[in-house]
C-alpha cells in the first residue's frame, strides 16, 4: 500500500467516529483531494466538510475561533509553506487560547514539501521553525507504526497541534518496521535495539537511518535505530540511558531549518552523557538549497562507516 493511501485509511477510520467535526481546506473534497490524502473524507464525515477559498491566514484563525466555540476541526493543507500566512494566529491567537485550556481539538495537517524541485518558495522543509516560534506541539511521522500512533492519538484531542507527513514519502510504499519501545506520548520511537551505537533520526530522516542501520549490520556492528517525532523539548531520560549504554551517536536530520530539534537534543546529551563518538548528518554544508533541486539529504554512507570504525 502506498503511504498516502495508508494515511488516508487512518484518517477515515478516526473521522467516521466523530460527531460535529469540521474538516476544511483547499481542494480537500474536490479535484485531487490533496493528492489523495483527503479523498473520501467528506463522504464519511458526519459534520461539515468545507472546500475553502485560498485564504490561509483566515483559515488558520477560523480553527482557533471554532476552538473557542468548543467545536473541533482539522485544517488540511497541501503545502506547509502556505502556513506561513497563518503565523500571526499560530503565535498571537494561540497565545490567548492556550490560557483557557480548550476542550475542543484543532489540528493543522499540512504536507511538508520535502520532495524537491519546487523552487525557492515552496520547498520549505522547516517544520522545526513553525513549532519553535510559539512552542507549538508538532509531530512528524514516516512509517506504519508511528503514523498510526500519532494520527490515532493526536488527530482529534483537546488542544492544538500541527501534524505533518512528508510529501516525498507519500508517494512511496509504506515503511513497515518492528518497534522495540516507544514513548507513551509518541515523541520518540525505538525500532532496533543495538549495543555499539545509536542512530537517532529527526524530521523525516528515518529512511536514511534504516539504510545506515543495514550497512552497519552488514559489517557486524550492532546499531540501535530511533526516531524523534516531536519538535519540542521532551523528557530525554530514556534516550540518555540508551546513549550511556552505546556511547556512540549518529544524528540524522533532513530539515532545512537552522533551528533544529536535533541541535536542542544534542545540547541535552552533552549535559548528561559522555560519548566516545558523535556524528551529525544534516544540511549544514549543503549548497544551492534555495534552487530547484532534489531534496534528498546527501549521505556518503561509506564515509560515515569509515569515520565510525576509525
Amino acid at each position, binding site marked *: 500500500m502506498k503511504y498516502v493511501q495508508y494515511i488516508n485509511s487512518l484518517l477515515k477510520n478516526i473521522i467516521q467516529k466523530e460527531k460535529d467535526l469540521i474538516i476544511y481546506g483547499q481542494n480537500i473534497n474536490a479535484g485531487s483531494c490533496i493528492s489523495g490524502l483527503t479523498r473520501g473524507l467528506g463522504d464519511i464525515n458526519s459534520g461539515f466538510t468545507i472546500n475553502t477559498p485560498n485564504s490561509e491566514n483566515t483559515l488558520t484563525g*477560523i480553527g482557533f*475561533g471554532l476552538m473557542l466555540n468548543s467545536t473541533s*476541526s482539522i485544517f488540511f493543507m497541501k503545502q506547509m509553506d502556505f502556513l506561513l500566512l497563518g503565523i500571526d494566529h499560530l503565535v498571537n491567537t494561540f497565545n490567548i487560547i492556550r490560557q483557557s485550556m480548550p476542550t475542543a481539538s484543532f489540528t493543522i495537517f499540512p504536507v511538508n514539501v520535502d520532495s524537491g524541485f519546487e523552487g525557492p518558495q515552496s520547498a520549505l522543509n522547516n517544520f522545526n521553525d513553525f513549532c519553535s516560534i510559539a512552542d507549538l506541539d508538532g509531530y512528524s511521522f514516516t512509517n506504519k507504526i508511528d503514523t498510526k500512533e500519532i494520527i490515532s492519538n493526536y488527530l482529534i484531542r483537546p488542544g492544538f497541534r500541527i501534524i505533518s507527513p512528508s510529501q516525498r514519502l507519500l508517494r512511496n510504499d509504506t515503511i513497515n518496521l518492528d518497534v522495540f519501545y516507544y514513548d507513551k506520548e509518541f515523541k520518540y520511537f525505538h525500532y532496533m535495539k543495538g549495543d555499539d551505537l545509536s542512530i537517532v533520526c529527526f524530521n523525516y530522516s528515518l529512511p536514511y537511518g534504516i539504510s545506515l542501520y543495514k550497512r552497519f549490520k552488514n559489517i557486524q556492528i550492532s546499531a540501535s535505530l530511533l526516531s524523534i517525532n516531536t519538535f519540542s523539548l521532551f523528557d530525554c531520560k530514556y534516550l540518555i540511558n540508551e546513549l550511556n549504554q552505546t556511547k556512540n551517536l549518529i544524528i540524522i536530520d533532513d530539515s532545512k531549518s537552522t533551528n533544529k530539534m536535533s541541535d536542542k537534543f544534542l545540547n541535552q546529551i552533552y549535559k548528561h552523557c559522555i560519548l566516545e563518538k558523535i556524528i551529525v548528518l544534516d544540511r549544514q554544508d549543503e549548497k544551492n538549497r534555495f534552487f530547484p533541486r532534489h531534496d534528498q539529504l546527501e549521505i556518503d554512507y561509506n564515509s560515515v562507516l569509515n569515520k565510525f570504525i576509525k
Partner: protein
Amino acid sequence: MTQSIEKTKIIENVLWLRLAQILVNEKYKKGDFKIPIHLALGHESIAVAVNQSMVSKDSLILSHRNIHYNLARMGTIKEELDEYYLNDNGLAGGHLGSMNLSNPKKNIPYTSSILGNNISVATGYALGNKMKNNNAIVILITGDGAIEEGSLWESLLFMRSNDISVMIIVENNQWSLGTKIEERRCKINLDHLSNSLNIDYKALNGNDPFHYIKTLSEFRNKSIKNKCPVIIEVHLSTLGYWYMETQEYPTGKFINYHAGPAPEVELEEYPIIEPNIKDPLHVLEGYLSKEELIKISSEQLKILKSELL
C-alpha cells in the same frame, strides 16, 4: 411608561460609560497603570447599542480598543480596573490586561490586540454557531485601520461562501495610530465592497444611541435570517485630543487621542467633552434637558464611586 423607563435606562448607560472611562482616565493620569489602555471617549453610543442589541447566545469579539464594550457588558467597573492593575482578582486574573481583555461570562470570548486578527477568529466562532444550530450572531468589532488588512477580505469570502451570520461593526474614527485615512491610503468604499459580495451595508452617523439600537437589532435579525454577514460602518470621533505647544507650533500642534491618558479630560459632574454631535452626551440633550442629564450623571457618578469605595 415602559418606553420612558427604557429611554432613561439607555441614557443612564451612556452617562455611566462616559463617567467610568473618565474615572479610569483620572487614575491613568496619575500613573496608576503599567499597561497601555485605549480609552474610547466618544464611542459610548455604539457600545451601549451593541450591548442592548445582544440576546442570549450572541457573542462579541473585540479589538485593542475595547474598554467601552467590556464596561458596557459588565455594568460595573471594579473587576476591569483590577485587571488593569493586573491584580489576581481582575476580570481575567491579571492575565490579559487591556488590549486582549475578553470576558466569556459576558459573551466576549475573544479580544485581539493584533490589527485584523479577530476577524477570522470571529468567522470561526460563527461557523461553530452554525454547526450547533445556534440561532445567534457573532458581533465583530473592527476599525478603519484593521479593514486595511487582508483578513477582512478573506473572512468575508468565507462567511459569504458558507452562510455564516456575523455583524461586522467598523468603528471609523479616521485614525490609525497617528495617521488620518488620507495620510495613509485611498478611500475604501465599504458599501461598494459589501455590494460586490451581496452583503448588506449600513452607515451610522450622529451618535444617537436609540437610532443605533434600532438599526443594530434590524441588521442582527437580517443577518441571522439570511445566513449572511452584514457590515455596519459607524462614523465617530475618539475624543480626548489635545494641542501640544512646541517651538514649531507655538499655537499648539493637534495630537489625536490614540492611547494613554487623555490629559485635558477632567472628571466633572456633567462630563461632556465637546458641545457638538461628535460627543454622544451632546446628542442626549435632544432627549432630556440639561438639568435632567446633570441629575442622572450625578447619580451615576455616585454609583461608580460607591462601587470603588
